[in-house]
């Protein structure tokens, strides 16, 4: 069952230099018990989608399309309804656990605050529930009385996860949840997130620029470039056998240790991701694409069917040509 779906979502930021289209028509679907991984580089619009779904965008930002949460349009919700939905139906694990917490409040009180605000529970009941949540994320309940500075980076991120689960949401959005963490701790936190997601049957939208992390935790992947989805499909298939040249380049940036094709052969793309206010014509990827041909600068490709449950926005896919290795 679909928990979150966006239909032709567009977001345009209001700036002094005119509107900047950050998201240009995105359809996403996250189902119960499923992890959708959303990958892309800085400026591709992935965090803008999160903010659009939660209605956290600055005023004057132009948002069109639909964001359906359990079938209800978030963009049309009144303020009261939005408050009710936030945290109890949809919650977020933010990137910088270090900065997302109040440094002068005990973590137990911070977790309990969300519970008191969003459920019918009283203060005492909320504290008990906060203790249970801490245990669930692998921390002893006595840590409820700690202040954030008494916790390590990994522990803080565990607390953030506990907070996200506090009101039993249907959907958890994880926005770069492990980026600031050390490699070992990152692996532990990812494992915890995945376990909880399975155990609670949560729908999860997992966002990061690190494709290798995403493949590990996601069921399906969506790859974004310049405000659009350029490829989607089952996670492992998309990573190991990309159909879009951009996905191919991205997955080539995460070498498999032991695979000799990567040895002494770093692969990358020339140029840089485009600035959202200045997206190239036609296929927005064409100036950097090693396989671009004469039609690419003029035709903006749709997502074409590219195999079982897979779609890719590339004219080569439409033609049925294989997207061969570029290096």
């Amino acid at each position, binding site marked *: 069952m679909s928990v979150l779906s966006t239909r032709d979502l567009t977001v345009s930021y209001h700036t002094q230099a005119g509107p900047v289209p950050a998201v240009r028509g995105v359809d996403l679907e996250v189902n119960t018990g499923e992890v959708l991984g959303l990958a892309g*580089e*800085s400026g591709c619009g992935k965090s803008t989608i999160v903010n659009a779904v939660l209605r956290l965008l600055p005023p004057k930002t132009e948002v069109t399309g639909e964001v359906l949460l359990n079938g209800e349009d978030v963009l049309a919700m009144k303020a009261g309804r939005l408050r009710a939905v936030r945290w109890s139906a949809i919650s977020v694990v933010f990137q910088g656990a270090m900065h997302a917490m109040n440094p002068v409040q005990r973590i137990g009180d911070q977790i309990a605050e969300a519970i008191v605000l969003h459920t019918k529970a009283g203060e005492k009941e909320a504290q008990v529930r906060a203790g249970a949540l801490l245990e669930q994320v692998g921390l002893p309940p006595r840590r409820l009385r700690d202040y954030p500075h008494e916790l*390590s980076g*990994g*522990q803080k991120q565990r607390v953030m996860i506990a907070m996200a689960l506090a009101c039993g949401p249907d959907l958890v959005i994880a926005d770069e949840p492990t980026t600031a963490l*050390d*490699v*070992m*701790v*990152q*692996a*532990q936190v*990812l*494992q915890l997130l*995945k376990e909880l997601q399975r155990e609670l049957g949560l729908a999860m939208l997992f966002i990061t*620029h*690190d*494709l*290798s*992390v995403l*493949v*590990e*935790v996601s069921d399906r992947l969506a790859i974004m470039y310049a405000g659009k989805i350029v490829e989607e499909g089952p*996670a*492992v298939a998309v*990573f*190991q056998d990309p159909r879009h040249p*951009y996905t191919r*380049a*991205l997955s*080539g*940036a*995460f*070498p*498999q*240790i*032991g695979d000799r094709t*990567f*040895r*002494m*052969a*770093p*692969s*990358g*793309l*020339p140029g*840089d*991701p485009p600035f959202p206010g200045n997206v190239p014509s036609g296929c927005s990827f064409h100036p*950097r694409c090693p396989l671009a041909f004469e039609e690419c600068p003029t035709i903006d490709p749709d997502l074409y069917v590219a195999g079982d449950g897979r779609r890719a926005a590339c004219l080569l896919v439409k033609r049925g040509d294989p997207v061969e290795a570029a*290096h």
Partner: protein
Amino acid sequence: MTTPTPARPEATEPVLEVRDLHVRFAGRLGLGAGLAGKKATESRAVDGVDLQLYPGEVLALAGESGCGKTTLARTIMGLEPPKQGEIRFEGKPLGKSTKLLREYRRRVQMVFQDPTAALNPRQTIYESIAEGLRVHGISRGPNGETEEQLVALALSRAGMRPPERFFLNYPHELSGGQRQRVVIAGALVLDPEIIVADEPVSSLDASVRGEILKLLLGLRNELNIAMLVVTHDLGLAWTIADRVAVMYLGRIVEIGPAEDVLTRPLHPYTKALLEVVPEAGGIDRPFLAGEPPDPTRIPEGCRFNPRCPEVASGEAAAAGVLDACQSQDLGLGELRPGHFAACHLRARETPDDPA
């Protein structure tokens, strides 16, 4: 595109050598504790490191945060004073000779992680790169080039072509990848023998990283510049390194040819590090538990023993080395040709263990 040039350490003298290097940071102490006569706990960030860097080789220095890899790189650059030990450049100890230090600082250049922070936002690209030349009093190149020609050459070697186009740009007008190229050009303009790069691509977008790595590898191949690349990313080490050194709690615990270390690791810590490299389709693997270790409290014996899976599984006890693990600190031993590790268990098993 690039052909692998295997480094042959035995054939040459190291261009840079570090011997028994120790770096410590004093801990902070509250006034009350100070008056009560307590001593601040010292952090042993680098705790006895020996390392050789050979001409034209790429050596990756890997480990988790807090293992001392950045401190080691900074100490090599002279940005932290060592408590003990010496750094030798082309066979000569650095010591206190200002003349030698000055020369050393020209020929060993650093590339930092975040190019935005490394460049002065109010300086043009030209000024940023020419500054190094001016600091070192270089007004002419070896073939009589002018300052402008030297800056242009450095920029174009770093892949900024045509270089003149970027002279008057400011850093904010460039993309992240271009900024990192400017930082690399700033190092190249001084014609270095060694580049020390601290996480050179981790702040860059994934699709841009490969190009910067290609550039670094190309510089090694064309100009024979030796590189010490500090990274937490073993995949990066697999892509560009000739040798890999793995650091744990201020010590190198394993070092050897990249292929050997990364595909047939000897030290249990290296194995654990390889275990956490993300893999397609599965997070259900056992990981090393616990937090990054604390350099103010280095355990007795092998410093990895409290977290070691071989100790936990009883493997070490079965081989009769558990006592040694918990009481004897050990150095690196050459367990395979050119491949060193500091592990009691592995030292017992060798020489014929195929692991």
